């Protein structure tokens, strides 16, 4: 069993590889709590990866469930060769699911009976957490000058290069580069600061403190 939450946090902080090994062993032994801990731990990085590759939140949400189901299915069967490298294993499952999606294959996740009490495997994001993330993003964007907002919008949404942005905004390309990097740094710092002052979600357990 997963056991005491605070103990889990300290264990993972001390030795992530051992925590991975224990998680893999627990799931193979049929521990449903371990499956829940696994899902909560990897839901965020898998979502981030799918979003980065797909740039479509709806498809990313669909594939997220496939990745988690396939990962847990493999873990239950004891198919993870190097338990200490569990993050790499999950990332490779996510890449396989993505590749199948891009090939257009009608991929069907292996039949897996999802435990009813495994709320995390429904992979519905915590509405409160989503709301907080959205608020932080809005606050970060509003902290930028309008020209920096435009530069980031053209970079992150339109995929334009500094030279093209500079032409559109009537700025020197070097200035665009500087502003872009500084705005990015500002956003990361602000969002992370806000997330630390608000409620914190530990990646190791996914449990709110």
């Amino acid at each position, binding site marked *: 069993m997963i056991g005491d939450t605070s103990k889990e946090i300290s264990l993972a902080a001390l030795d992530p590889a051992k925590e991975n090994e224990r998680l893999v062993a627990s799931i193979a032994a049929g521990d449903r709590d371990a499956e829940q801990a696994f899902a909560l731990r990897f839901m*965020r990085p898998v979502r981030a990866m799918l979003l980065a590759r797909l740039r479509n939140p709806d498809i990313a949400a669909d594939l997220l469930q496939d990745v988690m189901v396939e990962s847990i299915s493999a873990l239950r069967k004891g198919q993870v060769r190097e338990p200490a490298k569990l993050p790499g294993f*999950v990332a490779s499952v996510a890449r396989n699911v993505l590749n199948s999606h891009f090939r257009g294959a009608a991929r069907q996740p292996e039949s897996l009976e999802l435990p009813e009490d495994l709320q995390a495997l429904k992979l519905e994001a915590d509405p409160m957490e989503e709301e907080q993330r959205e608020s932080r993003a809005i606050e970060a*964007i509003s902290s930028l000058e309008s020209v920096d907002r*435009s530069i*980031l*919008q053209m970079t992150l949404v339109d995929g334009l290069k500094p030279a093209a942005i500079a032409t559109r905004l009537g700025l020197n390309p070097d200035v665009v580069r*500087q*502003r*872009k990097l500084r705005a990015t740094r500002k956003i990361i710092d602000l969002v*992370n600061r806000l997330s630390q002052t608000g409620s914190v979600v530990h990646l190791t357990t996914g449990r709110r403190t």
Partner: protein
Amino acid sequence: MTDCKELPGEQFLLDYLSGELPESETVRFEEHYFACSSCLARVEALQDVQLKLRAQPRQLYRAPIPWPVRFAVIGAIAAMVLAVAFAFHGRHQGQQPSIAAGGSTPEKPGSASMPSVQSPSIKTSAAQLADLALPPFQMPQLRGERSNPDFKSGMTGYINRNCPAAIRDLARVPAGDQDLTAARFYRGVCLMQEKDFAGAFTRLRSVAEAGDSPQQEAALYYLAQIALAENDIPTARHNLSLVISIRGDFENRARAQLVHLSQGDAGK
């Protein structure tokens, strides 16, 4: 949250989210942030902003005069003024060394300012090809940003084409300062302008090897120019190829120079 020793730079993150990283680097970074909460938090922060920005309406942009047009107009005016001045003095100058000092129009190196490559020796051609003009610099006017005073005074000297003063002041920018990379770069090009190629090479190489920065591509470009000026053609080719691979503002200039070098080879 900040215990990661390999936190990616801003440009790296933007490249990742834009799908512009090579696949091998993408995979390596993803496997890293699957186990690194600090890096995952950085990715998520930018993704949240990316999603919000996608939903936001575009602002009305002012219609600017594009930079190439501005350079062309300024260049044309400068050329006319010079022509009138020369005509007034009624004197012909002899052939000047083709290594340009400051004031050339850096956006068009492949046209009028490009020296001929029809000379008998490819080595002479390579040296003539070197673009040693100081790149333009515009002092950022970012609200809330504080530049290091030595950087500011150094760049004021730079803008006024006072390279000795710029070299002196930029050398004082301390390690760890946010302007250090830019200081190294502009000090490097000033040293290049002063023909201290060894000193320039050291500074520019440190900028090029430091990774993502607004000056990385330009540093590689000027390293190639130093190599050209010293007739080190293999190094010049290598650095020009790196510049082209970045696909930035110096790409066309680098391509033009590679073509010139190839023509020189063919004519040998």
